[in-house]
């Protein structure tokens, strides 16, 4: 089976549903919005995905035209908060985004980027971890457009942002994700360590990882951010913000994942991985906010694959540890492999499918919501990040993942498939 690398990533967005596209252009939008294998309805047949990703699929998009602009972003409690934001000028809906649009590519392919500063002050742009101009950063005067062209670098997760008056301009909205896939191989990296390579070789082949290998479509970005509206209000009034005061006095009032919080982030299938047991997913965690957090995932331990330090240096891990909680430092990218194994502490014969082992649970409806699929959260364990507007647990930095069926390819019975919600484009 040929794997189309144009469909490799989902990235939740703010605003009207259907706006995902993740920077892949109109054609890319159509591809992205097609449900993947896991999103299709119940089936009795398993679809093996043993093929390695094709090595030479052209990227969907090589040219990105961004504007640096401003917008009022509606928080989870409906409070509008002023932000500086990137806008994709080729997005037909013509909306800024917070966080900014996804830049994506395959190592070695061209990326052409132009950025127009529509704001009255000087701004900048940097992608730490890339040699030359992108990694050194550029300055963009008000009203001017700067361009850069570069080959997509070493595969991995990157963040781009405005490094001026650091960290103020980044935190006030000028940031976004960049994802580069390798031109070949079955891992997310150009130069995986032997242990990362072994782990990906074992997915779907070793006895302890029954199911399928990882495919790039089974990826999510979780971009964590924090917002202190007091400083956004200063920016809206045109006041100069002192970076030292900003760092010393910053007190987050909102905590987001991909620009959403709470129930929104927990029920957006562009953020929430879902699939049957044996469909491993890659999670690219990025922290553009001001606070370290301690993200904790339920249901499965995850493999910590790689970290990109704030300097931009990538460390693909040699010692690939299994964790359920890990420190997410500010300005760090961290890749997790969520193995999507059967939750290992469900009692009973592991040879009996869960649909037969836990039929009562899977048939129950509690609070008007069916217990199928099995849903597990991921949340910050620095639990301040679970608040919004000073409290309102859990309307902060929380999302989750869902197991929709057994490893033999049979989905769990769904009491009411419509009730789980999510953005309309996914349903």
């Amino acid at each position, binding site marked *: 089976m040929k794997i189309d690398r144009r469909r490799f990533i989902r990235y939740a967005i*703010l*605003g009207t549903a259907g706006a995902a596209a993740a920077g892949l252009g109109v054609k890319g939008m159509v591809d992205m919005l097609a449900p993947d294998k896991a999103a299709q309805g119940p089936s009795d047949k398993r679809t093996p995905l043993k093929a390695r990703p094709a090595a030479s699929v052209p990227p969907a998009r090589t040219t990105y035209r961004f504007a640096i602009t401003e*917008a*009022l972003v509606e928080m989870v*409690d409906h409070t509008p908060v002023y932000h500086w*934001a990137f806008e994709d000028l080729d997005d037909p809906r013509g*909306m*800024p985004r917070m966080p900014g649009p996804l830049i994506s590519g395959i190592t070695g392919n061209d990326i052409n980027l132009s950025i127009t500063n529509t704001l009255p002050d000087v701004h900048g742009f940097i992608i730490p971890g890339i040699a030359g101009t992108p990694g050194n950063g550029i300055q963009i005067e008000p009203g001017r457009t700067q361009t850069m062209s570069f080959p997509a670098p070493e595969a991995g997760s990157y963040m781009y942002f405005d490094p001026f008056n650091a960290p103020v301009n980044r935190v006030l909205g000028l940031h976004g994700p960049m994802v580069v896939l390798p031109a070949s191989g079955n891992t997310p990296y150009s130069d995986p360590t032997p*242990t*990362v390579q072994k782990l990906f070789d074992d997915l779907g082949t070793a*006895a302890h990882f029954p199911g399928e290998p990882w495919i790039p479509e089974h990826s999510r970005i979780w971009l964590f951010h924090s917002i202190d509206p007091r400083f956004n209000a200063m920016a809206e009034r045109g006041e100069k913000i002192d970076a030292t005061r900003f*760092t*010393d006095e*910053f007190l987050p009032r909102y*905590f987001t994942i991909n620009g959403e919080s709470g*129930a929104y982030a*927990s*029920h957006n299938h562009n953020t929430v991985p879902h699939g049957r047991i044996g469909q491993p997913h890659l999670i690219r965690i990025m922290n553009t906010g001001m*606070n*370290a957090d*301690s993200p*904790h995932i*339920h*249901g499965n*331990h995850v493999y910590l694959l790689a970290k990109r330090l704030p300097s931009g240096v990538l460390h693909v891990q040699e010692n690939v*540890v*299994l*964790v359920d*909680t*890990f*420190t997410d430092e500010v300005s760090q990218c961290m890749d997790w492999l969520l*193995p999507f194994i059967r939750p*290992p*502490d469900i009692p*009973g014969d592991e040879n009996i499918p869960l649909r037969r082992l*836990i*039929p*009562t*649970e899977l048939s*129950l409806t509690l*609070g*008007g*919501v069916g*217990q199928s699929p*099995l*849903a597990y*959260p991921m949340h910050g364990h620095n*639990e*301040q990040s679970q*608040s919004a*507007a*000073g*409290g*309102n*647990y*859990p309307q902060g930095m929380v999302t*989750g993942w869902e197991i929709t069926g057994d490893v033999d390819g049979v989905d769990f019975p769904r009491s009411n498939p*419509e*009730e789980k*919600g999510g953005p309309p484009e996914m349903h």
Partner: protein
Amino acid sequence: MTLRNIPLRQVGPNELPVFQKHVCPPTFSGEAIDPVTPTSHIARNLAVNMDLELRDGTKIPMWILEDPEDLVGGQVFPSKTIRTVEGDIVHARVGAKLNTHTIHWHGIEPTSMNDGVGKHSFEISGNFVYQFATNQAGTFLYHCHKNTALHFEMGLYGAFIVCPKKPDTMEARDVPDAPYPPGGPGYVKAFNPPTHCVKYDVEALWVPDDIDTRWHQLGHDASMPKCNPDNPAAAENFTKDGILNDFRPDVFVLSGEAKRMDDNTLFEKAAIKCKVGQTVLLRFISATYTINEIRIGLPIQFIAQDGYPLGVPPRGQYSHPVDRAAGEPIRITAAMRGDCLIRPTMAGRFPCTVDYFHWITGKKLYTAKTFIEVE
């Protein structure tokens, strides 16, 4: 330039139930769902009020989970450690008192209804029997997962230790059967073919915590949103005056011993006493909302993280244990765990510290000092 709006996405009618459940979970009670015959029983009630006393006599209100079957040591802070055996099937009878609550068995991975997260299942009103296996020997924790920012801070947590079975060797003759007694001796899961068990003589448990005493004046449902089934995402549901985003610790805790910021005296309760030639197993669990760095005054071997032994096949084969020099910092944040082995080769007193750094500024707030005394 017109200032444009980036609105929240519309919540469709089909999403109302999940949005409502996210903030206002249903209650539930009863016996285990899809029951399997258990090999181990646990009982816990929550919440129980208790005071944490400082050296100056000040009392800080805490909430703990009690073991109602232990009339002597069932009410302690941190809440009483649970000990089971690898492979056990556990039935945990949980009673919710004073309010609705849940227990999340952190790092143990059962079905959603046994995972103790209200928005994905329910909160307990009355009693419920959680069912799960403890298939992985290691260091876990358990805690309430309702209004968690507050309930975890208030002390509704404890250690959960899963012990490997004793190997059938001569060395194991003098060790009691698993679960091993607090303090040792016992066996821990670690890379050591073919049994992947290592004997320890002394077991220590360090649990750093930090307290913002302002938070300890709040009620169980402090700053929770209002329940509004017709419009669960409405602006008017939100409380606006909470402080659960604003954590300013003024008391620092290590394994239940609490000190004010200006109290630099030693934490005696956490001190480890052992002899030359013995093997010490040190387990640590972060219960803080700050960032911790632990420094141990002797070389250590780091053998397990978050309950999973490094290097042990099949799923741990992509990792390996790590040797760390004396004093090398181990950086951890909330709910992370680690196990390490210490094998002292000389007598003496070896200082150990736990630093607490602010969660936003990264500035050091406090250093807790304790020690390892080797005879």
